[in-house]
């Protein structure tokens, strides 16, 4: 079972690295969708050990995750890309190699942190959960910081979410409620609000460039 988890985590890490280097929006959307697939299957590993009532919840969680992360998100973002202005690129504000380099440093940081924070469950203590989760978080933050369009920031946010989710989902057995909360976060934030706002931005600004949304500030022009 640990192998399955580690396999998923390796997948997450690799996908994140690819995400850092991706140039096309639609490509990025696909990458986070694959991440969603991996995460959606994660609660199912080791489900046999759980009691029946929990099993039902775990199936539900898995299903919800797959629906939201693998279905709803990619669908929404594709729609935005299709209907929006012509920008199809991610528009990084730093060069992609630099972003990748930073990503590798972040990966090292994530592994360093995982040495400091050791999981209590001896079964999971030597898995890649913590480094993969932290790396997901760092990647997400890095994407938000270095991308210029609103949509690619949303993608970054989803990557961040996925990282957090990865940490949480292994505890689905201990505290399934929290995972459900995490899904709630996804649904609310990503779907209703960000989606709606990005639509508005698309309509009102004729661009999705958050770099140009700097009218509200205190620094001298």
């Amino acid at each position: 079972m640990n192998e399955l988890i580690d396999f998923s985590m390796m997948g997450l890490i690799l996908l994140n690295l690819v995400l850092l280097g991706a140039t096309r929006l639609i490509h990025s959307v696909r990458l986070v969708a694959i991440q969603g697939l991996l995460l959606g299957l994660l609660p199912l590993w080791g489900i046999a050990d759980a009691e029946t009532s929990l099993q039902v919840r775990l199936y539900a969680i898995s299903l919800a995750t797959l629906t939201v992360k693998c279905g709803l998100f990619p669908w929404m973002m594709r729609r935005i890309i299709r209907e929006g202005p012509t920008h199809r690129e991610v528009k990084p504000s730093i060069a992609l190699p630099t972003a990748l380099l930073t990503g590798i440093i972040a990966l090292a940081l994530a592994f360093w942190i995982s040495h400091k924070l050791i999981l209590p469950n001896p079964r999971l203590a030597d898995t890649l959960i913590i480094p993969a989760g932290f790396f997901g978080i760092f990647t997400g933050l890095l994407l938000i910081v270095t991308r210029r369009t609103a949509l690619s920031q949303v993608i970054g946010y989803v990557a961040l979410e996925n990282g957090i989710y990865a940490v949480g989902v292994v505890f689905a057995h201990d505290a399934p409620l929290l995972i459900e909360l995490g899904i709630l976060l996804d649904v609310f934030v990503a779907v209703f609000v960000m989606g709606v706002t990005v639509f508005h931005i698309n309509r009102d600004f004729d661009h999705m460039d958050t770099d140009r949304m700097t009218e509200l500030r205190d620094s001298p022009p």
Partner: protein
Amino acid sequence: MITALILTPFCLGLLAFVLRSDLLRRWVLVLGAAIHLLLTGLCIWIPPSPEAHGWLALDAPGTLFLALSSTLFFAAAIYAFGYLRVESDSAQHQDLEDGFLFDNEPEAVFCGCLLFFLSTMTLVAASRHLGLLWVAIEATTLASAPLICFHRHHRSLEATWKYLLVCSVGIALALLGNFFLVIALSFHTAGSHVSLAMADLQNNMSGVNPAWLKAAYGFLVIGYGTKMGLAPMHTWLPDAHSESPSLVSALLSGAVLSTAFLGILRATQVCAWGGQLEFARPVLIVFGSFSVLVAAVFLFSQSDYKRMLAYSSVEHMGIMALGLGLGGTAIAGVFFHAINHSLTKAALFLVAGNILACTGTKSSNQVHGLLQRLPFSGTLWLLGFFAITGLPPFGMFFSKLIILKAAVDQGALVLAGVLLILLAIVFMGMTTIVLRMCLGPADPNRPITPERLSSVLPPLALLLLALLVAWVWPEPLRNLIVESARLFDPQFLPGGHLP
């Protein structure tokens, strides 16, 4: 009881969405606020029993912030009544700064979201479960986002986007903090389900893993601190406060920041139960002082008076975090400070709305002679400024005094000195703006418009309430503060340190 408190505004909010008549909808808004206020009063009178397995209960700080939110909301609802009437006079509005035309969000969305907003704030105050608390705080963000872009133009959209993105990142980190807390707890509760309900946490924290607890606390502080407006996570705050309609800014500054503070308070409580208070205190002190510093920097030569109020909120949130970090006697001061700040700041934002409506500019450089042009609002603006900068006889003076006293008593002379210098810089910055606006001859070319009762009465009532709270000090309030302070210092005695 608590469920009723949460559901009443929620249902009325739904009602507001479906109603056809604008006038009726406004009445629903005021009605919802009034019912909520009444119920809250009832809750203070007769403490309600816990509900939903103890997940919903009102302890002292919760009741305190609930009462604050409810009061502010009532004032804002009355203000909104007049505000919406003026706003609905014309379908399109001219932008005050750039002159382009824009339209408003449908009033149904605005009123409905306002009531949802109240409902979520109530949920924050009443939740006794960290997960639920997290959901509730997230829900306040979602409910308030449409309120910020009531005026549909690019600036408010920009503000909303920043608000959403920054707060969402923060709230996601807070979720991770909750996960870490579960991990920290599962070290000694292996196998059994981990509960994040406060009642369970209080008993289960003894053998918790310190490393994970610290990490959890760090993430919670960052996450809720983003919502509360602690520097350097405060960045959304000036934008959102300056672009939203003034009554929304009043609620954001007065109620939302305080409820986010409740999140940090709960986290600190948990941290204290886990024996890691000594880790938490420096974190809070550093974030608190840094917030005051940042506020001082941006207040010093600020010209936008709504941004000024926003940065002042950053300053006061900093002071509250600092007080919480100092602990001991400062805790009571922090709660007192929160009350004063909420009432005063909300009043100031409402007055700022009046000024904006009259002058049509947010730049203080172009506003003069308010005392003559808007005698009531001008006077309230000046008085509110005195109140918010902690001049007696307003309550902020006492709360600052108590917090600073705690600092000096703990030997943190340098901290107290630096804080005083920063506060003096803040004062300098705000004086410049406020005096510039209030004084001077009124522009004879502009007609003096009579002020509406619904726009003057709410801020006046809030300021008077702030004054009343400071000097009359009603018994229930006193009990609430004392009980809140005892959460951290069981031996706390009111008046024990200030004879």
